[in-house]
């Protein structure tokens, strides 16, 4: 039994208790000995399952195990009456089976016990009614179940119900070879009048051309003569005639409304529930993509069901099959159908003769095909994907719908798949980009939030003039009016966006180096401008956000994260001055990170500058130098708030400064007095002059300034070290090798 056990996580273990209680309660409810109560009890149970929903759905594995073990050990007749243990286990199995379906092993156990005749017929009926496969049904279980029929232990009604079950579940049986071997057995059962219609249906499903034999045809014709024109017999005969017209000479009515009684009805609802749970994995759902027979299609428009198309080669389109034939002649090999593609090595072996699925949307679930797409340059692939995805996103977008509750989960799943695919391909889909541009202005900022924001991070690098009105403006509006958490999420996804752009940019640079495939030289700086615009945009919203959120530390963390990413970007230093100002009053960590950032940016720039020889305007450099000067002014030369170097202004009126009542404003942000470093200054003073308790910061100057600096370096402030060494040319020091942009 242990191998049946799925890997359990602690969460499941936690939940077992609660759900065991609910299972027990259900057991009590259904414990009434009268079978007449059964239906109402089941109904009740169903309602209960729904209300308990996931809570109960996620666990109860233990209980199922117990119940199955119990049923496995049944060796003799066990009555239902006053048998609470049996009733309990039965209820457990029922509730779990209808919610989640049963594993092949579980089905095997239950099928065996239901047909063994050890249990009362009502119990057998209940068991058979809840035999819903979670995935597939093992052929061997079906074969052993059929063998019970031969023993004749179970009643006629149980046999009949089993046949109906078999018909309803036919598509779930994993293999059918051995079942075909039993064709003769089933055929013999035709003589049973009650079973006959169902046996006919089953035979109809099983019949192959080789099953049609003269003696069988004779038998059927005899039966028809005996029983009269029965639709089920006619169905089977017409199928025989279809396969072997020469064997069936009688004329059959060409059109028949219904051949068979509906066998599925008992299990249909449950199957659909389970199918929805593991959408796209069950064998039948692959066949029914848009069929009218699909129960959900009644509620929704036929073409708006969010089911990813199944991966299948197209046999329907003669245009394409012709092409294949053509290819055959050339390559002496057949094309390789995608259905058979299961492993990476198969992909490698057949990559030259692989056919794409008939619906390109199906590649989203197939990582092997995504690999394949990655190495194929066929624009029709992308165009097909583009149209399909664009329309699906548009049709399914939940905030256009009135009753969106129902479909939001589905839509979320879809967006997740799209995002994963984008990550896999390392590329954003243009249909996705357009969807975002179209839909973000109408977004409430809440529905599918994390999915939408993640998709934002894969917007392809393109002209910012397009992105600005369609993405930035609506996003900024939401940003300003939403919670701190939302702000941080937006910053996070913009950081990812920047990261992706920069990665792309680097790749593009590699391509650029090959002159043959770079018709884009001229536009490169245009792309860099887009990156710059994005950084400006983030600078702007981050500044406003800092004001709105009173410089929340959490927010700062994300802002700094963004700027850290920025440094992989060559020669673009666009840090908003106001942020600087906010940063100056920061706790140590941030201030330190900030400085590290700035320096790292500079380092980066120096390297890239030599390699790439970008033609950036001198203005960029001027701006950068101004920032450096301002920083130096604050930290080193104690001249904060003096010069106006930026339109947003770093200089403050003396009047305003006076109002702050801070003494010695000018040096309040130097490395000694800066709030972030004052702690170090105090420690330094304590160590240097242990007897002095007055904490006279002014002692740190001249030679001691240098000691203090060394002290700071020793404390591990590498960023500060880098910054000072690279930005400040100290006359007294020889060791400065790196020349800075700023002469002090």
């Amino acid at each position: 039994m242990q191998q049946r056990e799925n890997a359990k996580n602690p969460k499941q273990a936690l939940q077992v208790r609660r759900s065991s209680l609910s299972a027990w309660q259900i057991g009590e409810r259904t414990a009434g000995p009268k079978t007449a109560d059964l239906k109402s009890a089941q109904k009740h149970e169903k309602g209960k399952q729904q209300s308990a929903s996931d809570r109960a759905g996620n666990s109860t594995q233990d209980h199922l195990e117990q119940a199955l073990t119990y049923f496995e050990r049944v060796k003799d007749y066990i009555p239902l009456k006053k048998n609470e243990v049996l009733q309990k286990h039965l209820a457990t199995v029922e509730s779990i089976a209808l919610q989640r379906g049963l594993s092949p092993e579980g089905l095997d156990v239950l099928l065996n016990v239901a047909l063994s005749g050890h249990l009362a017929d009502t119990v057998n009926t209940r068991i058979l009614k809840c035999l819903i496969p979670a995935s597939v049904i093992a052929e061997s279980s079906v074969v052993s179940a059929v063998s019970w029929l031969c023993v004749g232990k179970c009643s006629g009604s149980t046999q009949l119900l089993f046949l109906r079950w078999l018909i309803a579940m036919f598509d779930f049986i994993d293999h059918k070879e051995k079942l075909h071997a039993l064709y003769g057995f089933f055929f013999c059962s035709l003589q049973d009048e009650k079973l006959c219609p169902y046996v006919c249906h089953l035979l109809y499903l099983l019949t192959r051309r080789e099953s049609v034999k003269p003696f069988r045809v004779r038998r059927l014709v005899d039966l028809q003569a005996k029983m009269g024109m029965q639709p089920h017999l006619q169905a089977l005969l017409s199928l025989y005639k279809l396969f072997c017209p020469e064997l069936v000479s009688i004329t059959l009515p060409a059109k028949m409304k219904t051949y068979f009684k509906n066998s599925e009805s008992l299990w249909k609802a449950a199957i659909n529930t389970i199918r929805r749970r593991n959408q796209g994995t069950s064998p039948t759902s692959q066949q029914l993509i848009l069929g009218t027979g699909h129960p959900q299609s009644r509620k929704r428009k036929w073409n708006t069901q969010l089911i990813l198309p199944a991966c299948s080669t197209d046999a329907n389109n003669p245009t394409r099959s012709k092409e294949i034939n053509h290819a055959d002649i050339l390559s002496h090999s057949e094309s390789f159908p995608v259905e058979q593609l299961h492993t990476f090595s198969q992909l490698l072996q057949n990559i030259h003769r692989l056919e794409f699925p008939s619906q390109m949307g199906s590649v989203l679930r197939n990582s092997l095909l995504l690999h394949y797409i990655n190495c194929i340059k066929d624009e029709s692939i992308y165009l097909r994907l583009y149209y399909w995805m664009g329309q699906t996103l548009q049709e399914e977008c939940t905030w256009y719908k009135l009753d969106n509750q129902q479909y939001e989960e589905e839509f979320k799943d879809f967006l997740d798949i799209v995002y994963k695919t984008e990550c896999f391909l390392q590329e954003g889909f243009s249909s996705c980009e357009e969807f975002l541009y179209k839909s973000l202005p109408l977004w409430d900022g809440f529905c599918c939030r994390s999915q939408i924001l993640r998709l934002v991070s894969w917007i392809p690098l393109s002209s910012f003039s397009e992105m600005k009105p369609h993405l930035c403006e609506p996003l900024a509006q939401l940003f300003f009016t939403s919670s701190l958490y939302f702000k941080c999420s937006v910053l996070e996804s913009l950081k990812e966006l920047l990261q992706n752009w920069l990665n792309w940019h680097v790749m593009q640079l590699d391509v650029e180096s090959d002159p043959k495939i770079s018709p884009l030289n001229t536009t490169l700086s245009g792309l860099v401008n887009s990156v710059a615009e994005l950084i400006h945009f983030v600078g702007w919203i981050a500044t406003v956000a800092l004001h709105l959120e009173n410089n929340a530390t959490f927010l700062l963390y994300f802002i700094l994260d963004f700027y850290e990413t920025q440094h992989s970007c060559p020669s673009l230093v666009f840090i908003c001055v106001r942020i600087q100002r906010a940063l100056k009053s920061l706790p140590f960590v941030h201030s330190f990170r900030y400085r590290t950032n700035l320096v790292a940016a500079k380092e980066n720039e120096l390297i890239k500058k030599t390699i790439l020889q970008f033609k950036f305007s001198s203005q960029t450099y001027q701006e950068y130098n101004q920032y450096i000067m301002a920083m130096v002014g604050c930290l080193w030369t104690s001249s904060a708030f003096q010069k106006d170097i930026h339109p947003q202004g770093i200089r403050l009126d003396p009047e305003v400064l006076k109002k702050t009542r801070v003494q010695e404003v000018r040096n309040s942000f130097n490395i000694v007095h800066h709030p972030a470093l004052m702690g170090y200054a105090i420690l330094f003073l304590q160590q240097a002059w242990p007897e002095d308790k007055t904490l006279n910061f002014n002692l740190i100057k001249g030679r001691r300034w240098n000691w203090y600096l060394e002290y700071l370096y020793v404390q591990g402030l590498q960023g500060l070290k880098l910054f000072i060494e690279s930005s400040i040319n100290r006359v007294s020091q020889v060791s400065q090798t790196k020349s800075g942009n700023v002469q002090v």
Partner: protein
Amino acid sequence: MDTPDSGGMTPLGRKTAETGINFTSTTRFSRGLTFIRTHTLFGQSPTRRIIPQTSLLQENVDPQKIAFLLRKQWTLYSVTPMYKFSYGNLKEYSRLLSAFVAAEKQKGLAVEVGNDLGIKVTLSTLLGLKGTDQDQVAVLVQIASRSQLPFENAENKVVWSGWFCCISGDDLLESVPEDFTCLSLFLANGAESYTAIVGSWFQKTFDCYFSRLTISPLNLAWMAAMWTGCKVDSHMAATELVFSVPCIPQSLDISYAIHSEDAKALWDTVQKTPGEVTQEEVNLFMDCLYSHFHRHFKIHLSATRLVKVSTSIASAHCDGNIKILHSKHLIGVLTLLTELAISQIQ
């Protein structure tokens, strides 16, 4: 909806100007889809449309088939370009689609392709249904069920029909490679279950996507104005506009009918350049009608939602249903609908 910069883009008039954004700079990984993005982004409604002058059908048209298209209620769909659709294979498609329909209808039972299934699907071309020469040939799909009575096998009853067309859809056509066939507008008449079967077969076989095409109040107003301005020789039905007031518990519909001569007279005073309609003119036309209504009933129709327009040319409902009444204006109506369909799929 005022989009001054989207310029005079009309389906008929050639593209006047690009959107002003240089999309060639969008260098997407060398396998990008830059070619798609040459159109106006996001289907912004053009501010100016040209009324087709040559609204006559081409010569090779089959009048019977055209008559079949008229005076029927069609449900509108937009269809993305079909991959590897071939006009040479229509017969084969008919055979396969027949089998598919039959199989779907009697689910789970064996169906032999090509056998007599009691259902016959025919795909045929609708020659002459073109706005420009570049337009791809329209395709008619019909499902006929064999008569119930076996001896009366002469007439097959058409139970469902649908047709694809793309009138003056050059914009889209130019941006799509050869493997694709652009028949962006699909019109269906008959049980939705058949539409579903046929639609899903096309989706599966040609990797396209069907979406319902609804018509916004703005576009309905355009239709009201454009169709009012059309000349009709024969009987003139009244121009009727239906407005919906979203009130509780039941929504209220206001029907506003105008003698078509009066509507035409009003439109003639509004329209500045013959053969051309602008957004301002449409707005002005509707405003005139609104203020007239307000004078009499003290109801501001501008605060309600236009849901239906019917004129002697055609009638259209916001849900995406259309009935075309006049063969002379068939192309004109379809041109506008094609434009709407294309803007939905791009």
